[in-house]
């Protein structure tokens, strides 16, 4: 049994995990520190602390525009991705059908693709179609990578979905649409919600696909990259920190909602055993 595992090993695993978690957040901490200086260049230890760059960044019209573009793209990606992915996930995990095994692999393929190459391929393709790059083409480009991820996330919920629920509703006189609205959708909601969260955040933070497909429009990651390469100001860590904290906040709220939903269901698993 687990309880027989030596205590030192359990402690060691905890300690190691904690160390790696700190490692994961160290760069974020550096960004935060770098943002809280009043001087033009980053020199550590910081001598002149201050939030001047925060104020400057939030007041900037250019930054507002960036936020708008990034939000618009992420919002469109989320709505479209979840719609396609919900059906994709039902085909992935709910139905037994002939081509399913191949289908699953096809759907996963874009996830395994280097995004920079994917972005360039899409640039070529849009160009061949005679399209002008803009935020709309970026939405499409994001979708190519995010729809499969979203499908995978929702599929995990679909796997635990009992198809008999749909049959039961149908048997009780519901039409196909009523079955979908009254049973399938609400039961799968936690999965759909996580899928939406993933879609939004992945689009929000995406750089390699945006780089080639936004054209004249600019997203926050693109702007940050441009500034990092040439023209560093402490506005870079400010914006970096904002987007990190924003992502974390959104995810934590989402997580809280999922925990709430799950708690309501936790009892069901216990009583079924």
């Amino acid at each position, binding site marked *: 049994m687990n309880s027989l595992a030596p205590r030192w090993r359990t402690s060691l695993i905890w300690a190691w995990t904690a160390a790696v978690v700190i490692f994961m957040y160290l760069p974020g901490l550096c960004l935060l520190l770098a943002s809280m200086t009043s001087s033009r260049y980053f020199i550590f230890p910081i001598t002149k602390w201050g939030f001047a760059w925060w104020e400057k960044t939030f007041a900037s019209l250019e930054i507002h525009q960036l936020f708008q573009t990034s939000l618009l793209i992420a919002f469109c990606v989320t709505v479209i991705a979840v719609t396609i992915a919900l059906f994709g996930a039902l085909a992935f995990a709910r139905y037994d059908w002939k081509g399913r095994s191949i289908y699953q692999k096809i759907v996963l393929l874009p996830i395994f693709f280097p995004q920079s190459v994917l972005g360039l391929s899409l640039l070529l393709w849009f160009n061949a179609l005679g399209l002008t790059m803009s935020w709309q083409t970026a939405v499409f480009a994001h979708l190519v990578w995010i729809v499969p991820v979203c499908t995978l996330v929702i599929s995990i919920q679909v796997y635990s979905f009992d198809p008999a629920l749909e049959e039961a509703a149908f048997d009780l006189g*519901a039409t196909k649409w009523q079955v979908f609205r009254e049973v399938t959708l609400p039961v799968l909601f936690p999965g759909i919600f996580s899928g939406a969260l993933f879609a939004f955040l992945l689009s929000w933070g995406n750089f390699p696909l945006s780089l080639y497909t936004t054209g004249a429009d600019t997203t926050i990651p693109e702007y940050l990259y441009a500034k990092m390469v040439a023209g560093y100001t402490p506005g870079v860590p400010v914006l970096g920190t904002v987007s990190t904290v924003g992502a974390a906040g959104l995810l934590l709220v989402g997580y809280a909602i999922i925990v709430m939903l799950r708690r309501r269901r936790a009892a069901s698993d216990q009583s*079924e055993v």
Partner: protein
Amino acid sequence: MNSRSPILQLRKLTKTFGSFTAVKEINLDITEGEFFTIVGPSGSGKTTLLRMLTGMESATSGDILLRGARINDLPANKRPTCMVFQSLALFPHRTVGQNIEFSLKIKNVAPDVRKARALQLMAQLRLPQDYYGKSVTKCSGGERQRVALARALAYDPDILFFDEPLSAIDYKLRKTLEKELKDIHRETGKTFIYITHSLEEAMVMSDRIGVMRAGQLVQVGSPQQIYSAPETKFVSEFIGDVNVMAVTAKGSSIVHAAEFGVDIASPAVPAGFTAGHLVVRPESLRFIENRSGAENCLEGRLYNEYVLGSRIQYQVRVHDHVFIVEKLRQQAFAGQRDDNVLIGWDAKDSILVTD
């Protein structure tokens, strides 16, 4: 009790999946108000048959007639029948009340009427009234069974189907629920069609039982008939522990068991019976003092004994053939392991069956 007209008639009902025939040319009449149970091992096609009857699977050929009208092409949501699922399929995001009212909501019945009906059904099924707003996920196994049944009854179906709903329930509660279900059947007077792999369960509840094997109904009859007059070795073995000997016909009521090299007095051998099996139930076998103690007798070695509460079973080996002898606990056999014993039975207690 009920009118004797058939409510459901199956005519040469067949289902194939590719080259595999899951259900083969089933003919069956179900009487209005009957509790009919289809029994079969897993893979016998009973679930496929049930899914065709509920409309969740389409029939490959043959007819399903409900009160004389062909309903093959009627989808499940248009059929006046309803099923209680093996997993129960309770909607986890709904309360007990909402689950029961589901079909009424679909039919746009007014909320207060719905609630009254739900509470009435809950009372009938002995669910406390304050469970109305309780999440189904917080109900116990037995309560969930009752909610599922109430939900199906709220639909007011002409026929209720059951797909092994009790299979995941522990033994003691299952025994209680079996009897409850039979009481509900009596109270509602509806036609129940039940499938299970447990003949024991079928015996308790059913008016009639149909035994399925490899997609076909091999025998249909009352629990009494199935128990005392199985027609095939398969049906006889399905009931539980039986002693089966391969035999060939030798006279008008004599068969030969080549394995033991003896002739055996049997019930009248039917015309056309050449080879088959002789079935003797464990409770019909007895230990005897000498060969004149019974019409038929075999000598073997007492190998082991099993205490089954009120009864005790003894394993006796005759050559390599295993026989089971069953006795009431009060009449326990005094023999020791490895003793040589004589076991015997009378011709009237044995049954001749085909393969």
